[in-house]
């Protein structure tokens, strides 16, 4: 079970992702742009951040830079992008993973399970 922050300016998409993660037992939180995401991070550090790159308001690049500056690698970032060169986009902000839109939600779950931060999990659970 992971605390996942879903950052996307498309409300319909982030709601669907959040619902899906919830169905699988994760605890999703959502943000509509980079600035809101920083507020959510400030409230509580998530175990993983799903980050859209092209967003109205503060975009993914700016959020990525700001996050790294403030928190370093406190949480892994998975770039979710419609660009054809998803890997290159992920490299630009030194993200831990990437997913190209449109993605399969099972693929998303697999990425979350693989990359989500485990540091706060109780030692016996690992």
């Amino acid at each position, binding site marked *: 079970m992971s605390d996942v922050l879903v950052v996307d300016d*498309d409300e*319909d*998409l982030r709601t*669907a*992702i959040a*619902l*899906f993660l919830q*169905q699988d037992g994760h605890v999703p939180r959502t943000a509509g742009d980079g600035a809101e995401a920083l507020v959510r991070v400030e409230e509580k550090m998530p175990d993983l951040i799903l980050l859209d790159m*092209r967003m109205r308001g503060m975009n993914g690049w700016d959020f990525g830079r700001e996050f790294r500056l403030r928190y370093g690698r406190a949480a892994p970032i998975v770039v979710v992008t*419609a*660009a*054809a*060169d*998803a*890997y*290159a986009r992920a490299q630009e902000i030194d993200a831990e993973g990437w997913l190209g*839109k*449109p*993605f*399969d*939600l*099972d*693929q998303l779950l697999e990425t979350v399970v693989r990359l989500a931060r485990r540091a706060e999990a109780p030692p016996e659970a690992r």
Partner: protein
Amino acid sequence: MGRAPDVQSRPRWLSPSSIALLYAAAGWLWILGSDWLTLQLIADPGTRAQVQTLKGWVYVGATALLLHLLIRRSTRALQQSEEYVREILRSMAEGVLVGTPDGMITDLNPAARTILGLEGVALPIPAKRVCGEALVHDNGSEWKTPLERALSGQVVRTEQAQWRRPGGEVAEIEVSAAPLYSRGEDTVTGGVVLIRDVSEHRRLARARDAFLSDAAHELKTPVATIKAWVQVLQRWTPQGHEPREGQAFEVLSRQCDRVARIVEQLLQISLAGRAAEKAGAPPPVELRASLEELASRFRLLAPRRRIVFHCEEPLVVHAGRDELEMVVSNLLENAIKFSPEGSTIEVTASRAPGGIEVSVRDEGIGIPPDRQEHLGERYYKAHAGTAQDAGGLGVGLYLCRELLRRHGGHLTIESAPGEGTTARIHLPPSEEARS
């Protein structure tokens, strides 16, 4: 405007050689006839000698007059023909320049002057100035100019190049060149280069690619949203509240994937257009890990095919990772599309004599030999209009070829109908491996 030389409109018997023959026959008759007449009519040998001399002068005069007429006519025809060719060259939108083996441009038409920015420069111009360092091949490789290659006997067919005009402005041009031989000889006496300014054409192509790319990006998010909601719904009620709802989810999901594939291909068309424009060496990529990951992604996408991956050792190549993945993904998608369920698709990466080779082999329907030569042409679909047509826009292999060309690699395809297809990517070795 020069006229086409009217050689065809003249009767055949008026050609210079037939006139000369007629003249010889008439001269022979004149000599024989006039000698006989003189003998018959003039008895005095002195007077006869005078008449013979006069006859000789008349003959010489007539010959000179005829020669003068013939030469004048030929010269005029030659001038007309030259003027005609010059007029064609003058009115051509393509630039034409002619070079000699000693490296001088001896002729260039107004279009060539405009395209190259050489208005007012007097001929001959040293070829180095026109085709030398300023003419850079679009992949930046060491490159003999088309004129140099034409002078060495090669024919150069439509190559893309950039030309920096004296003012610093860069024109994008298409160049062709061919050697010139003197009649009946094997030695090259010069070279002719044809250039076309394609700057505007390229600008429009870039605008089209940017539009396609933007449109595809814009479409991807709603498609992703619809797909996500369908999957959420499927999870909530896998079979639906009613029996037919489950089926409806299936159809929605399948059609979503189809739209996603089309959108992806639109994006690929734009990428293929831009592939040739990118410059600079990409960072090194470790192929084994990247391909292993790709293979596992495809195993998820195509659970009914057996996708196996072989690679003995880590392999480093200098190519964009996304682009390489796009190439292998395209080949894998084709393999899946055109092979039966339960069959095996084998992806192999290994060192090869000229660098690194990645092959994708399937046990599918194969491609008929007559369709193989067109593979990789933009919008060409080998199975278009047949029962095996699996849809798509026919850009996959074109994109593969363009992307590989950019990295100095190439693609070969072997296929036997009913047995399967093997697509091979050949990539040059990385810089480290070479040094």
